[in-house]
């Protein structure tokens, strides 16, 4: 079984457009959305949920007993999550990293780490293939944990159903949920665009794939809005031995199809869709070699 994750560094470069197309073009596949706090793939796949489970996330520190205000927890918390307040200590849940040091040092056992429900994950059917996705509670810890959970379910599902490919739509950025979506995959597809922002973020995410030793391919989306920058990306890729699988033209048909919740490759008049099909053919030669 192979796993491939679509990432970009910069948001809005076309990850979900590519992921949905690959999902449509593949056979014996499982679709996974690892962008858990702004999940969009479901909009195109129109899933019917078969199974819903609660996601219990990282445990945050909470004062549950009698605080004698000794100050030990505040002194030892490396994340500056604890501050003094009138008759108790105050815990900044956003800064709390669930390390458990405060719980350990508290002489009166007044602090406990309490796991919280932070979202849900789903196993769904779609017209194309099984689909594993999730919803993180608004504002919750963007836990790599939820991404890992989603991926584990997808792997089990793939083995149980004799599937040979997991296609993962990743999140923007380079942080914990992105790293969790890359862990142990066979390939990543980096979708970039020929803008200075796109290039800058592409280089950062490329560093991450090197750091974790994952083979990556590149797709340049909207390549024709700046041919000079596209040339710079191609040069960077050839210097770093990364194959550019394809260059997708700027195409108003992409948002148009999106507004009808249609996958772009189903529109045969779309130039972008045609190029994505060619990209898939190249990718296939690696996936099924």
């Amino acid at each position, binding site marked *: 079984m192979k796993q491939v994750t679509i990432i*970009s*560094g*910069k*948001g*809005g*470069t076309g990850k*979900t457009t590519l992921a949905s197309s690959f999902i449509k073009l593949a056979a014996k596949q499982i679709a996974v959305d690892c*962008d*858990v*706090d*702004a*999940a*969009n793939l479901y*909009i195109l796949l129109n899933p019917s949920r078969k199974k819903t489970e609660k996601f219990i996330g990282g445990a945050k520190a909470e004062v549950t007993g009698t605080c004698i205000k000794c100050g030990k927890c505040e002194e030892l918390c*490396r*994340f*500056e999550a604890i501050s003094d307040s009138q008759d108790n200590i105050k815990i900044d849940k*956003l800064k709390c*990293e669930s*390390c*458990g*040091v405060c719980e*350990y*040092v508290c002489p009166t056992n007044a602090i406990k780490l309490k796991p919280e429900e932070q979202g849900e994950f789903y196993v769904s059917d779609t017209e194309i293939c099984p689909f594993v996705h999730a919803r*993180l509670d*608004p*504002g*919750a*810890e*963007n836990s790599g944990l939820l991404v890992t959970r989603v991926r584990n379910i997808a792997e089990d599902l793939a083995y149980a159903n004799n599937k040979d490919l997991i296609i993962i739509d990743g*999140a*923007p*950025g*380079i*942080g914990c949920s*992105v*790293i969790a979506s890359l862990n142990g995959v066979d390939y990543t597809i980096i979708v970039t*665009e*020929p*803008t*200075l*922002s796109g290039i*800058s*973020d592409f280089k*950062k*995410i490329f*560093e*991450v794939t090197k*750091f974790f030793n994952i083979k990556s391919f590149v797709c340049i989306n*909207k390549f024709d*809005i*700046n041919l000079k*920058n596209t040339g710079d990306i191609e040069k960077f890729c050839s210097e770093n031995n990364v194959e550019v699988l394809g260059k997708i033209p*700027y195409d*108003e048909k992409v*948002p*148009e199809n*999106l*507004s009808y*919740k249609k996958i772009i490759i189903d529109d045969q008049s779309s130039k972008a869709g045609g190029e994505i099909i060619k990209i898939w053919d190249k990718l296939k030669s690696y996936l099924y070699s």
Partner: protein
Amino acid sequence: MIISVASGKGGTGKTTVAVALAKSISYCQFIDYDVEAPNADLFLKPDIKHINNITIKQPYFLTGLGKSFKACSDFCHYNAVAAIDNKVIFFSELCHGCGGCILVGPEGSVRERDIKIGEIRKGFCPPGINFLMGDLQPGSMRTTAIQNELEKNIDHDNHVIIDCPPGNSCSMVMAVRSSDFCILVTEPTPFGLNDLIISIDVLKNLKIPFGVIVNRFGIGNDEVFKYCRSNNIKILLKIPNDIEIAKYYSQGLSLIDFDSLWKNKFVCIIDEIEKEVSVK
């Protein structure tokens, strides 16, 4: 007054809007909170004067003394320490640097060293923008630790513009929570609307007032407008879908460089926000 510019969906134009706001008022502090993929510097082109390395402390284990480190491995909530007999395998990328292993481990046998997780950069853009950004090191997952350093440097006596990371999770909350008002940038597509609704949920929970800017107006459909109308959400501005704007953007040029008429529109938006905030 602190204004944050956020968006659930990535690539809708947060940085475009944040940069245009800063360039319109000319005197402010600008903070790029998108530490995983910071881009505002490409448009504001600040003269960077200070670079501070941000480090965390990570342990190393003196295993030659025959001590057992099982207590460290049992304690570590991140599974960063595996102790087998008297040996230790340490997974640096999982370690948050909490210092727990020093507290629970054999005395004197767990030491610490500084590990770089990123940088804070400070600079200036004439005539009066104090620029501040964080930059997370590739391979590190310590996004909010870098943002925490930014938070300490907010200049509360100045106008502050905050460029947020995409998404609706903790790193977005870190970026918006200090603000008096949040501008949500979206695009009129089902993706844009879906992620806008989640962002609105976050801001309502935080009790931060907000308004919406619709970018790439003309593509997609009118569902975003319908949603805003029926929920009484103010649309502050529409930016048309224009390939010429996209070309300017691709070269690191701002909306104001594209057409200086935008400057007045953003000044008006800030006036409007200021009135709303001062009423509250």
